[in-house]
């Protein structure tokens, strides 16, 4: 048998003849051995029933790992900082002392224990949660800044004894204000709830809060990537914006809680990132579908997401025009169509389900649809929403007598508004905060003026971000207009956490506004400022609950 014949012979056959293999050269032997190994491996794989699926998963993971490797290390560190900060907040804030946390916990418990959606907006919590709230003095402490949490060993023992008796975890289906919320966030929270089900309710709550902290980390990651896409030329500024957001106490406070705002913020940050990418690289089919899917996820997370909807649709339509020149008209519009169908699917299902069951479960959105009939004229509504954020213009009705909404509701509350919206800094701190805020505003304006040419070029992109922001502002303002008389003003800065990516870019621009020479120095001071804000906010919460 010639060497060529042996080489042509099936490998298995030749491998079986040891005398032949001894005769071939080392290189040829290795080649054949490798071929045999490969064949055996393939054979083994083919015997595994899920080998196709397994390979697909491995392939998908490899595909995912590729882009992940491209994420700068600084972005991961920002994410880690945000996660650690939120973890601190999750520990500092006493159980159930964050707006509506008992309701959000009850919703998750209802899904996990009863495997059914909540049935009413009454508060029929489980026996376990009711006991915990009672033993923690939650009813006395929340909304009463002079009341503190439990402070004696006897109170702690009572709490532990009551929870150790394994009271019922099955509630009556009434989850208070969370009733109108879609279920996705709570379904995800059911995972840590289930993982900690061997422990007490407090263990479950802490693990659920940690999941929120993870979402906070993801938010910071997406904000960093958003800044990278929007300001690609100034690498150092990405870190200023990213760290500024990661250290923002409001993000830590809300991410360290059981509250769908945490996930809403993450989803929104991801959408902003996708838009920035689309404006820079074009709206590919994959990007369009991603935005559509994220929009659907946002709609299923919290009803407030509806406020972002018009801006998102506007953005996708706007991006499709240039995309049709690149990918062809049919392809671009087909992508848009698919994305819109995916985005709107939950809204339609939700609407249909509520119509069929006679539920006004669209909450603030359904009340919004009843506009005009229940309240004043459309001019009254517009002037209310304007005055909710900005100083009154001549000719407008005075909806907020004696109250400067811009300063007192939004600025002061952005400085500090924690606990169950009952924990604020003294007025002198709010006044002092005007100084750094004023300096930051001046630097920001300088950056805008210097970069006005670039701003003009990127006007469509700015319009989309503006539309998203205005949509959310209108929704919150309108909700306050409709329900404010009964439920109080909806003037909580946390409602605007979905716009955090814009804050990140504003911070990066602010640092750039200090000029090429002093920009990084200003950036370092901005980071320290946000760090200080976070630490003093935490001390404020400690002073509120534990002294």
């Amino acid at each position, binding site marked *: 048998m010639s060497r060529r014949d042996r080489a042509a012979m099936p490998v298995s056959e030749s491998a079986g003849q040891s005398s032949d293999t001894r005769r071939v050269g080392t290189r040829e032997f290795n080649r054949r051995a490798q071929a045999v190994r490969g064949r055996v491996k393939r054979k083994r794989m083919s015997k595994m029933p899920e080998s196709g699926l397994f390979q697909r998963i491995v392939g998908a993971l490899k595909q995912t790992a590729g882009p992940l490797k491209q994420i700068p290390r*600084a972005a991961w560190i*920002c994410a880690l900082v945000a996660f*650690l900060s939120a973890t*601190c907040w999750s*520990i500092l804030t*006493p159980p159930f002392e964050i707006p509506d946390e008992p309701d959000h916990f009850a919703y998750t418990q209802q899904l996990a224990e009863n495997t059914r959606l909540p049935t009413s907006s009454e508060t029929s919590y489980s026996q376990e949660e009711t006991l915990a709230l009672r033993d923690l003095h939650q009813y006395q402490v929340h*909304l009463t*800044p002079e009341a503190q*949490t*439990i*402070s004696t060993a006897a*109170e*702690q023992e009572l709490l*532990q004894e009551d929870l150790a008796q394994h009271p019922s975890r099955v509630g009556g289906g009434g989850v208070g204000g969370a009733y109108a919320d879609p279920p996705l966030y709570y379904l995800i929270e059911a995972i840590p709830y289930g993982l900690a089900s061997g422990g*007490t309710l*407090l*263990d479950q*709550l*802490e693990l659920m809060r940690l999941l929120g902290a993870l979402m906070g980390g993801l938010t910071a990651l997406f904000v960093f990537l958003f800044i990278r896409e929007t300001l690609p030329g100034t690498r*150092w500024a990405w*870190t200023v914006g990213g*760290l500024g957001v*990661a*250290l923002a106490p409001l993000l830590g406070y809300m991410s360290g809680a059981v509250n769908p705002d945490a996930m809403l913020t993450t989803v929104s940050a991801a959408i902003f990132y996708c838009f920035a990418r689309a404006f820079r690289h074009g709206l590919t089919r994959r990007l369009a579908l991603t935005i559509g899917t994220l929009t659907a996820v946002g709609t299923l997370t919290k009803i407030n997401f509806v406020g972002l909807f018009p801006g998102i649709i506007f953005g996708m339509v706007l991006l499709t025009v240039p995309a049709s020149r690149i990918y062809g008209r049919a392809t671009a519009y087909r992508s848009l169509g698919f994305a819109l169908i995916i985005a709107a699917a939950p809204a339609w299902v939700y609407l249909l389900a509520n119509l069929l069951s006679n539920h006004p479960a669209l909450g603030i959105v359904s009340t919004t649809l009843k506009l005009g009939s229940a309240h004043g004229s459309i001019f009254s509504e517009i002037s209310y929403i304007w005055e909710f954020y900005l100083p009154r213009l001549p000719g407008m009705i005075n*909806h*907020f*007598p*004696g*109250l*400067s*909404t811009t300063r*007192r*509701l939004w600025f*002061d*509350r952005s400085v500090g508004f924690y606990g*169950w919206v*009952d*924990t*604020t800094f003294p*007025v002198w701190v709010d006044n002092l905060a005007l100084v750094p805020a004023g300096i930051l505003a001046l630097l920001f304006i300088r950056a805008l003026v210097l970069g006005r040419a670039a701003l003009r070029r990127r006007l469509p992109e700015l319009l989309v971000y503006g539309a998203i922001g205005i949509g959310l502002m209108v929704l919150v303002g309108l909700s306050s207009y409709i329900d*404010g008389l009964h439920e*109080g*003003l909806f*003037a909580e800065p946390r409602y605007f956490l979905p716009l955090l990516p814009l804050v990140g870019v504003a911070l990066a621009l602010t640092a750039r506004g200090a000029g090429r020479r*002093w920009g*990084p*120095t200003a*950036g*370092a001071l901005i*980071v*320290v400022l946000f*760090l*200080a804000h*976070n630490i*003093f906010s935490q*001390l404020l919460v*400690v*002073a509120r609950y*534990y*002294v």
Partner: protein
Amino acid sequence: MRRVAVALSVGLALLVVAILAILTRSPLTVIGTNSVPAAVTNELQNGNLSRCQSVGTFPKGTSAIRIAIEPTSAGPTVTAKVLSGTRVLTEGQLVSGWGAASSATVPVKPLAQTLEDAVICTAIGPAVLPFRIRGTPARRSAAGANKLQDMFLSMEYMRPGPQSWWSLAPSIAYHMGLGRAASGAWIVYFTIALMLAVVILSARLTLKELS
């Protein structure tokens, strides 16, 4: 590189100094009341109201007056004036927009001497939303007793306590260890360690990327 390092160092040093300065101060504690029990709660729809009431002894050093006014979600402006006869000895104001609370804490300039037979005049500015007041009716038979003029408001006087935040740290740590999944004061040290990690990570990243 050098500028960023200097800015970061100075900023962090100032932060530490500010924290230490705050820890040496004392939290506000209640040192007295006007002896009016919060027996009745009334809801008022509009502000622009005022009333003066005799409060007896007004302790020296009082730096804040806690008045039983409870807003829905944005409180109206509350002004308090402490008078001896017709002379205003000290006054203070809580600006409108304060959040949910069971009372309005109005900061005032402390008096050097205790005041006997003091009168406190409370003025409530325009209110965006209804608010509640607590106290005792001034005239039981009076019609429309839900007005500010017809109520003796409950008040508490506050000033910094004898112990600093720093000296209260052990009891705060103990308190923080209660009522949570992982009990014990160790949770405080764990939280401090986490925040230190946040500071170190942020500082290192800032130095690396901005230099």
